[in-house]
């Protein structure tokens, strides 16, 4: 005859132990305490299964993967310089010497030809507009001062756009607008700090919905906070 201790030790594994099943069922028929215990255990198992089902859809927020990918990218070996640094210096010095010698030899032994005075030179840019530079595509390019990375202008355009995206401070965009995609994630405000945006510490724990504009290279380029 099976004892209560033996029955409890067998517990919910009754089905895994067919050899002792008949004995356990016999004990169950004569022991109300163990019957109640088994019922409670089965209820508990059902509750735990329900808990498992509720939480099985949970996944790590997307922002974690984005942050880790950033680390992987940083591990990429830098492309080797095809010329050592000292060679660059030597080349630069040679070019300067060449230009000096050329200007001296073109001016001839009599010295430089009379040109505008220092005052005139200083005044030239402001009094006489220089001809507009020709663009790469043959058109007349607008004067660009200061020079700006064309991709950075994409992001600037995004920032100014009505769709509410704000360019990430560190982003160096390398995408065409058509190839970018918008990923909607739910994250804590503190996560915005990881993207380089200012965060109010008092509200860092708040959950917000955010659209991330991801370029073809997988890097987040801009962010839009959803209300």
């Amino acid at each position, binding site marked *: 005859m099976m004892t209560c201790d033996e029955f409890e030790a067998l517990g919910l594994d009754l089905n895994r132990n067919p050899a002792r099943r008949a004995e356990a069922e016999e004990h169950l028929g004569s022991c109300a305490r163990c019957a*109640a215990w088994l019922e409670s255990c089965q209820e508990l198992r059902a509750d735990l299964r*329900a808990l498992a089902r509720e*939480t099985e859809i949970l996944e790590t927020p997307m922002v974690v993967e984005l942050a880790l990918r950033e680390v*992987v990218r940083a591990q990429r070996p830098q492309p080797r310089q095809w010329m050592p640094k000292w060679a660059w210096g030597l080349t630069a010095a040679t070019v300067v010497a060449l230009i000096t010698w050329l200007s001296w030899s073109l001016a001839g032994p009599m010295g430089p030809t009379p040109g505008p005075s220092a005052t005139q030179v200083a005044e030239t840019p402001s009094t006489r507009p220089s001809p507009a530079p020709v663009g790469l595509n043959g058109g007349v390019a607008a004067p660009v001062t200061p020079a700006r990375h064309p991709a950075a202008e994409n992001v600037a355009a995004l920032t100014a756009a009505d769709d509410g995206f704000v360019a990430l401070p560190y982003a160096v965009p390398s995408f065409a607008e058509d190839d970018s995609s918008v990923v909607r994630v739910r994250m804590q405000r503190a996560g915005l700090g990881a993207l380089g945006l200012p965060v109010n510490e008092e509200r860092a724990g708040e959950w917000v919905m955010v659209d991330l504009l991801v370029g073809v290279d997988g890097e987040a380029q801009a962010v839009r906070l959803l209300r």
Partner: protein
Amino acid sequence: MSRTPHLREDELLRRIARGDEEAFAQVYRTNHAKLYRFALRMTGDPPAAEEIVQDVFMILLREPGRFDASRGPLAAYLFGIARNRVRKHFERVPREVPLEPEAMSDSPGNGSSGYAASSNRAHLQAPGVLAEQSQRAAQVRAAVLSLPPEFRETVVLCELEELSYEETARLLECPIGTVRSRLHRARALLLAKLEMWRNTPRQSAANGAAAGFAGKTGERQR
């Protein structure tokens, strides 16, 4: 991901060390959800679970050489790191056991992706049923979180992840007998806690009386 479906894990790690994002994505996507669920079920704290998953992969990225393919699969290695991080989390954060399980489900800190709010998926059911289920789920969650860590991880792996005793023993690096006994004691603790919260003492007395076992009620057969 599709271009590298059958690479060996050590080869994947070598590629990750060279900055191969695709190889990393493959490893990450295979493992992150299980690790996150484990961390979340152990801590009950979504931000902490996030941090633990991030730490696990950061360790993998910084020290890929620590993984030895001959000692077991990468998933088990990552799980081992996650377990250590969970332990460190418990050391760092004072143990907070909710006195009122209902407080967990109402807490604003538990957002919709949080552990507690996940039970609100059954929104189409009648409010009464929903409330009862929600309360019951909150009690079970709180009871699991109140277990000592070594019992809790056994419950999480065997009952929530539905791993076999053998798989659990392998992950926890302990004998199967230890898994069985921990699970047995964990169930007893869970039952006691839930009975206390639900104020429903074990049915033995009522059942026993009804079934004519009044004399035997509460007595153990030896």
